[in-house]
């Protein structure tokens, strides 16, 4: 294995790993969009809020991590319930852009609330996840693989598997799938739309918590965490707003694409190309498939 090829491999691997991290955030978007057609602008802030809560309860109330986790999950479920109660319920049947706007309002509220409750300092999030490069890989294969990202990949796989089970095997999950296709159909399953929304937002909240913990372990918990949503957007358009596998595959493609571009193209054009390259990549895909990689085909009718 030549050095250059090894380095290329490293680039691809770290791209894949970064892609998994993006996909974690994108998953939350997809869940909500799939079930309710809402483009949840607040997903990034939800990650921050979840992570802040997770760290906050540890700091302020001295809870151990294993207790803080269910506490944070509880808060996210409560949040989902509140969102349904105070916001979504009043905006049934509104245009998508209105709901999108409402999630923007929500993002503001959560951002302010998180800062207000837990302060705007950087918080260290350490739940004992392995950090740094894998010595094993580095020593034996001279391959640079970040341990945290491997863990993230594993967790993402578990999460996706769990979601798959949830959607395929549980009654509620099946209702959720039904609601994605047809609101009426969901009602016939016997679960009210309101309940479904609470469940979807709770699940998205938990996904946000997981993403928040992963990103928080990587870079500490503070305001910038909410900006990772921007990283998830190209993943979303690439994978399609409604597809969970799309989010994963899209994440991987974007991750690899932008890393390769940055490393191999960056030096020639002055660097910092990852951001726009991700979007350009997504745009290029879209021009071929306007509904995204895994999105449902748009058939125009009159």
């Amino acid at each position, binding site marked *: 294995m030549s050095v250059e090829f090894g380095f290329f491999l490293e680039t691809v691997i770290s791209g894949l790993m970064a892609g998994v991290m993006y996909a974690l955030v994108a998953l939350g978007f997809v869940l909500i969009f799939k079930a309710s057609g809402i*483009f949840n602008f607040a997903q990034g802030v939800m990650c921050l809020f979840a992570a802040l809560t997770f760290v906050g309860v540890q700091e302020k109330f001295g809870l151990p991590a294993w207790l803080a986790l269910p506490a944070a999950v509880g808060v996210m479920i409560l949040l989902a319930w509140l969102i349904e109660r*105070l*916001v979504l319920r*009043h*905006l049934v049947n*509104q*245009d*998508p*852009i*209105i709901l*999108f*706007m*409402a999630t*923007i*309002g*929500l*993002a*503001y*509220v*959560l*951002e*302010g*609330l998180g*800062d*207000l409750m837990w302060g*705007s300092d950087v918080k260290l999030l350490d739940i004992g996840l392995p950090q740094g490069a894998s010595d094993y890989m580095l020593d034996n294969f001279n391959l640079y693989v970040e341990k945290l990202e491997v863990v993230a990949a594993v967790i993402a796989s578990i999460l996706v598997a769990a979601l798959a089970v949830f959607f395929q095997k549980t009654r509620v999950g099946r209702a959720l799938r039904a609601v994605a296709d047809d609101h009426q159909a969901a009602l016939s399953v016997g679960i009210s739309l309101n309940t479904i929304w609470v469940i979807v937002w709770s699940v998205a909240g938990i996904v946000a918590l997981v993403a928040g913990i992963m990103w928080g372990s990587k870079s500490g918990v503070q305001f910038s965490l909410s900006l990772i949503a*921007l990283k998830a*957007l*190209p993943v*979303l*358009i690439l994978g399609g*707003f409604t597809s969970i596998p799309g989010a994963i595959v899209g994440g991987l493609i974007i991750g690899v694409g932008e890393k390769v571009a940055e490393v191999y193209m960056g030096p020639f*054009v*002055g660097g*910092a*190309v990852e*951001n*726009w390259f991700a*979007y*350009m990549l*997504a*745009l290029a895909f*879209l*021009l071929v498939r*306007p*509904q*995204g990689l895994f999105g449902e085909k*748009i058939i*125009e009718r*009159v």
Partner: protein
Amino acid sequence: MFYRETGQFKTNYSDDRAIFPIAQDRYGIMILLAIAFFVIPFTVDDYWGNAIFLPLLIYALIAMGLNVLVGYCGQISLGTAAFMAVGSYASFKLMTSFPGLDFTIVVLMSGLITAVVGSLFGLPSLRIKGFYLAVATLAAQFFIIWLVNKVEWFYNYSATGQINAPERTALMFPVTGPNAPILYKYFFCLIIVVLAALVTKNIVRGRIGRQWMAIRDMDIAAELIGVRPLTTKLSAFAVSSFLIGMGGALYFGVWLGAAEPTEAFGIDQSFLILFMIIVGGLGTILGSFLGAAFLWLFPIAFKNFMVDSLGLSTAMSEHLQIILMGGLIIFFLIVEPHGLARLWQITKEKLRIWPFPH
């Protein structure tokens, strides 16, 4: 209540289609304009000019531009800040390359250049729709900002990539640079914004505007009655970008005076403008102004109130303000999803039938 419409009747279609068919609206807008032209300029100081009126006017102009695209033509864009950047950098290059050029021309040309760039980035809209398009416009956002940050020619090879607006005049009056009196700056922006609003209104109430709205409301039906999607969408992108580009030139040249691409034209600017038109009201000119006013003035007013009057710490006030802002947005959406302009519309209807409730 104040609407006394008795005796206002139209004997020709021109009057019937006037921008303000109701006389009271005409008087109202005339009074507003009179205040804007004859009262404010002589009471305005640096604070009111630089912190309140200039940003208000400039944001209104930019919001109007975005509203053409999103509100009238239904093409969601998140690349506004990039187009502002195009306008700003175009004006910077024009100002520094042709020092003698009147700033009015600079602004117009910046608008035109932005219109060209905007149309180019509008091309994908022919294939991509809805939120997919919205996210696709982010490509423009990131690419353009990267480009102007990277290519040194754009910022005249300055050490840091900052651009500074040199002193230029419009019709002999200095309007850019630190020494331009706020009065001139204000008048310059006001005139441009008023004219732009008038022209925009004219466009949207005519054939082109109706075709935009047709595409927005039902693109297939629009095509089947003879609306050409290509020209219609691109014209919306062009007009929108033209306004945004002019706004960008004013934003940088007149208001800020200096700009740095990643911060002044960051993605949060794009979102801010989008929020303005949604809160203000999609598809209305008035909404652009109301939205700009709300999103720019509310935080300032709130900050002043919380910090100066209640003596809260700045951080606390900022947090509360963000929460309140979000809460208000949600509240407005629940009360009236179509924005402040619609709220005014409803109030107006109420006033027109006063004292009756319906």
